[in-house]
């Protein structure tokens, strides 16, 4: 494990990172891949919703909101 590796949910708003790996399995993994969370993709945390969750991320030219449980399944650096 690389020291710089952390979970997407910990990414601060306005900061950018690179997707390293997915911890999700099966259908969930597919869903995340389809949304563009693929190894090597640049991702930026843009906006938290009023309740603090979900968070909107800018990825491959689109704004996508996901919940923290899912963001916890994405490793970034």
């Amino acid at each position: 494990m690389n020291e710089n590796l952390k979970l997407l949910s910990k990414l601060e708003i306005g900061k950018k990172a690179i997707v390293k790996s997915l911890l999700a399995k099966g259908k969930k993994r597919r869903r995340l891949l389809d949304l563009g969370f693929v190894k090597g993709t640049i991702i930026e945390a843009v906006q938290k919703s009023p309740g603090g969750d979900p968070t909107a991320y800018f990825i491959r030219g689109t704004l996508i909101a996901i919940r923290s449980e899912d963001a916890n399944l994405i490793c970034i650096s």
Partner: protein
Amino acid sequence: MGLTSQDSGMNVVKSNFNVKKNSNDDKIIAVAGNPNVGKSTLFNALTGMNQHTGNWPGKTVTNASGVCRYKDKNFILVDLPGTYSLMANSVEEEVARDFICFGNPDLVTVVVDATCLERNLNLVLQILEITNRVVVCVNLLDEAEKKKIVIDLDELSLQLGVPVVGTSARSKKGIDELMQEIYEMTFMNKKTYKIKSNYDEKIERAVELLEPEVKRIVGDKINARWVSLRLLDIDGPLKNSLLNCLNIDILEDKEIKLIMQKIKNEILIEKDDYIRDLLVEGIVGRAEEIYGKCVVLKDKFYSSKDRKIDKILTSKATGIPIMIALLFVIFWITLSGANYPSELLSNGLFFIQDKLTILLSNIGVPIWLNDMLVKGIYRTVAWVVSVMLPPMAIFFPLFTLLEDSGYLPRIAFNLDKYFKKACAHGKQALTMCMGFGCNACGVIGCRIIDSPRERLIAILTNNFVPCNGRFPTLISIITMFFAGTIMLPYQSFVSTLILTGIIILGVFVTLVVSKILSKTLLKGVPSSFSLEMPPYRRPQFLKVIVRSIFDRTLFVLGRAVIVAAPAGLLIWLLSNIFINDVSILSYCANFLDPFARLIGLDGIILMAFILGFPANEIVMPIIIMGYLCTGNLTEFSNLDELHQLLVGNGWTWLTATCTMLFSLMHFPCGTTCLTIKKETGSTKWTVISFLLPTVIGILTCFALTTVVRVVEALI
């Protein structure tokens, strides 16, 4: 391995889309694309049809087909649901994929969003793996221009090996060029080129082994390379589709089984997830490469304006207050704007009523028939029109503007946390928004929720959002009983406040019921939620107003009138057929009365709700008819007189409140029930969706009535 019934299989897919060729010269064109790229707008521009459009993903959940004539040829366009991929993660993806694979379209037009081309290329590349009879349509070029995104369409065409056309469907730019390409592809057999793929070497080796065997089995029915790729990533739904549509059970084939085993043992020894990653990375990597070659961003911060708007509309401090304020403003404009035209309309229509009676009696129509036609049918219809038309003509366009701008997904974003707490799905907020227009539409809209459990919750609770048919009841009661005594300029303000409160109550009940359902009948944890938040777009004001009045307002009104006319007749008959000097209406009302009193209503009101089952619009007219027929034959023309009529029949503020509460929480209308039956395919859930809100409504009204009566007795 029988291939005999493949034709009937094809027909199954086709009949799902209602596609019929009238002659062999007709061409079937599938319109595919990511959600929210303007497919429906393009579809409308091409076919001259008026599919409803809006700026949020998942707007089109039902499939439409329409005919476009170009150069004396018929092109049958099939609007597929928007999907990000064809890997079949959801019902829509499966539907779209099955049509492209097995529906035998002559051509697939893939619509992509110029403002986020890279993501969209993912789907294009996947479709190109299945067929190269493709025309790519780069839509929303005008939006891209605004954001200073420059796309080299020729280079894109070169990279993809198929024709590429740039369009701005909203302003109908590029539509002719698109049709020309479609024409050339289908009638002149324009050549396309195979493009190189970008898969990991291991994947390529595996496909090399599989492809010849797959080819042997599927023949020319479907692209063998694509099936081979899919076999590597075992895909249950595809297996079923192959079985259903081509009658091939490919995994049972001996040779295939052997090769698959060999691949597993020698080439791709890793886990399934790893293989899937390789497959997706292959496509995504290629999309990235093409994107890099074809697109130049002249303004790196092109989305900064959207971000600023989002900061205001979805931030912790202002997100939810602004949302409620927007709701309030929409209602306020609707209420204050509808007041005057409503009165004008009802004066006019009741003036005609008198004339109509005179006319009919002059031409010798017997009194009973005259009464039946005018006081029964005409009066009910007139009431429905005068009360419904003005608010709808204002509400629908306003709501459509909001929809067009891209705000609705932000509502889902804002509220997701609360839906998650209720173990439900954030997109339920979107289906509730649709429910404002019509609960049946809201129920169909629930298809955008993937998890079956959460979709069912959304379907069962959609009725707690008052639809357009119930607004008139709410509005007229609020105006008569709660805002009537207040000075005029503030009157509509107070009315709006109460109406907004009722809506928020409805949302609150939805959340509570969702939570209860999640803990009892529909146990489960929240599934994953992902929502695309589209860029804001400036709505096309004039077009939206015209469209929403003609397509939605008049449609809903028409439906209401169709129900109102026979209902008016029925209620007239009930109140004019006497048995032992008591009308049938009184019999029924008296029968219901004791129970109705318990929940703060009376027999007539409860009966109105029951008779209003076909359409909620006619509840208020039936109440009025009921009172008019059972004694006080007061003529009324405006709300003041109506107020007196109701008070004269024993209405208090409690009656009014309970009527409103019961209107918010009672059984869904007939259309909605049928839709629920169709969507869930289960009688059990339809019955539950009927009983659930009814029981909750009865309990709420009973509790309120009892408390108020106890307090009144004590004072």
